[in-house]
């Protein structure tokens, strides 16, 4: 893996993406789905930032919003030194080669009526002035890079397996030598033995071309493998962001703890021994999030303050960010301890 530097390539500040809800005879605006509600993070050059969370938490919307596939509600997005948060879509076109996307479902994201060659060539047609021969050569190189046989260039997507289709999607994303690629659940639709192939390919390409990834996934074990740092989202907000080792060894936010403990462990003796934190209930609706902390309805260490005041998202340890009242003020005592102790110390302070 390329050594990641401390220079952010992508910098997102207070990103909000609200989708309006219209209802009634006059299609009046009655509310909004706060899919992404104030998210801030940096992606350093050459690193892979993992973005994890359950379905509906807004992680895909966040990935798409960062690439400005939506017109965002508010916030700043800086990619490679350029602010694109409020750039009109037409002006964004010239920026597109730097930032690309690999989609979740390779079946749906490849045009079934185009040959593989045409699919990979399309970005070249759109953004470069290469001659046909040069384009064909480039397509050949890309197919080599992602491990597809050049002979299959004239075939259609249906003739390929799921893993191969995902390789086609990756080749298309690479065509314009991007710096930053958003991978939106690139392996979710693949079988386990094929997932490993695609993940290894993504890592090889990162090293070869010096790519920076935002890797969106719900598979925590795969993210542990590929990501340098990991951001955990819950109901439109990042609740914790930390370097990989720290997050998996010592999660701070109660939601991260529960999420990690829910991952099935492929080892029967471990799986039966470890105590699971079973969260009660379901994720609240993003159109009507609870008052205070978004997680307060399911949190095992919930306190009074959580139901009233929304916790700040702040750096509680060097390089580790979280949004939780357990780590407020009592920073020194609550630091790195599990929920109950931290909760007690907070309670103590309150009674004093």
């Amino acid at each position, binding site marked *: 893996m390329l050594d990641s530097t401390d220079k952010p390539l992508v910098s997102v500040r207070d990103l909000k993406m609200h989708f309006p809800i219209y209802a009634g005879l006059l299609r009046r605006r009655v509310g909004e789905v706060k899919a992404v509600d104030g998210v801030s993070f940096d992606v350093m050059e050459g690193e892979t930032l993992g973005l994890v969370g*359950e*379905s509906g938490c807004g992680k895909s919307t966040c990935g798409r919003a960062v690439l400005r596939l939506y017109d965002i509600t508010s916030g700043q997005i800086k990619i490679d030194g350029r602010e694109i948060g409020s750039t009109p879509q037409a002006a964004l076109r010239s920026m597109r080669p730097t930032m690309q996307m690999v989609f979740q479902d390779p079946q749906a994201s490849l045009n079934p009526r185009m040959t593989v060659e045409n699919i990979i060539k399309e970005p070249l047609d759109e953004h470069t002035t290469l001659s046909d021969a040069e384009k064909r050569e480039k397509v050949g190189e890309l197919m080599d890079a992602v491990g597809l046989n050049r002979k299959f260039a004239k075939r259609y997507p249906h003739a390929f*397996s799921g*893993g191969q289709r995902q390789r086609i999607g990756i080749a298309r994303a690479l065509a314009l030598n991007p710096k930053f690629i958003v991978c939106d659940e690139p392996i979710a639709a693949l*079988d*386990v*033995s*094929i*997932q*490993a*192939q695609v*993940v*290894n390919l993504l*890592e090889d390409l990162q090293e070869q071309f010096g790519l920076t990834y935002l890797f969106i996934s*719900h598979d*925590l*074990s*795969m993210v*542990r*493998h590929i990501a340098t740092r990991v951001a955990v989202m819950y109901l439109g907000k990042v609740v914790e962001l930390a370097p*990989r080792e720290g997050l*998996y060894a010592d999660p701070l936010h109660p939601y991260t703890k*529960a*999420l*990690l*403990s*829910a*991952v*099935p*462990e*492929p*080892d*029967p*003796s*471990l*799986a*039966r021994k470890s105590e*699971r934190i*079973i*969260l009660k209930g*379901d*994720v609240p609706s993003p159109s009507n999030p609870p008052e205070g902390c978004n997680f307060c309805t399911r949190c095992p260490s919930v306190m009074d303050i959580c139901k009233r005041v929304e916790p700040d998202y702040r750096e509680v340890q060097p390089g580790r960010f979280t949004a939780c009242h357990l780590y407020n003020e009592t920073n020194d005592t609550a630091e790195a301890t599990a929920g109950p102790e931290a909760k007690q110390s907070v309670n103590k302070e309150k009674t004093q």
Partner: protein
Amino acid sequence: MPDGAMPVLDVRDLKTVFRTRGGEVHAVNDVSFSLKAGELLGVVGESGSGKSVTMMSLLGLLPSPPADVRHGTVTFEGQDLLHVSPETLRSVRGGKIGFVFQDPMTSLNPVYPVGFQIMEPLRKHMGLNKREATVRAQELLELVGIPDAKRRLDDYPHQFSGGMRQRVMIAIALACDPKVLIADEPTTALDVTIQAQILELMKELRDKLGMAVIWITHDLGVIAGIADRVMVMYAGQVVEHAPVHELFSHPQHPYTRALLKTIPTITGKRAARLTIIEGQPPIMTSPPNACPFRDRCDVAFDRCARENPPRYDLGDGHDAACFYDARTGGPRDA
């Protein structure tokens, strides 16, 4: 687990073929297994390995044509389910054998309230009247942990979240006190935190009701946490079958070993690079007369291309269909 107990369900040499325009597809090839009361059998395999088709074959759920259950026996309560009348089979399905499907959205009827759908098997199979069935349906919803059960009986599937819908599916499957519950990837469409809820629920219900469960999944992590025995399928065949601890600590078939290596974990040492299984699963258009895994296998030798290995008994309820003996590191005797 009661050892040596009579199996509640016994499947021998089940073979299912699909007739397609491109020729026959051999989806299930001589699959045999048995299930004891109160036992949880995990079935693992990639998509297309025949896990779901096996279970659907034995309940006669596959449309024919194109499906054709060629041969085999499925013994359940002294009857061969492959050779009983459709009426008898219908009384078994949803009655003594419950089925939970993968996708709770497509397997619940969107135009009927869930209460009606839970009451349907109760009235059909157990002959309860409407009032009795309502009471029982409410009990079932409470059993699977849906709060405010009485009121929610009148709700429609779209008013429930994914995890809740899957609970409703389980409630329907449990309605008639089944002896066997077949769960086909019941948690695949769900998030990990909801999956953890459902897994806990299943373990609890299994202990409480004493039914046997067949749990189909592609997630070895889920299997490790819940199963008593595991059956690994590849290309329509059972390639390895063992008690769960044995399978994870001493996998014998090269496919199982490779599969266990490909999955990253959230604990333990992080591998610098994931191990991969090269190649693709075979296209099963010809009858299996060679080992289906040989092209992707790292220990394959000439015999693997000539014969399809039988399931060798390795003792202690462990068997593997491979000519290579991982214990001695050499070929097995003929």
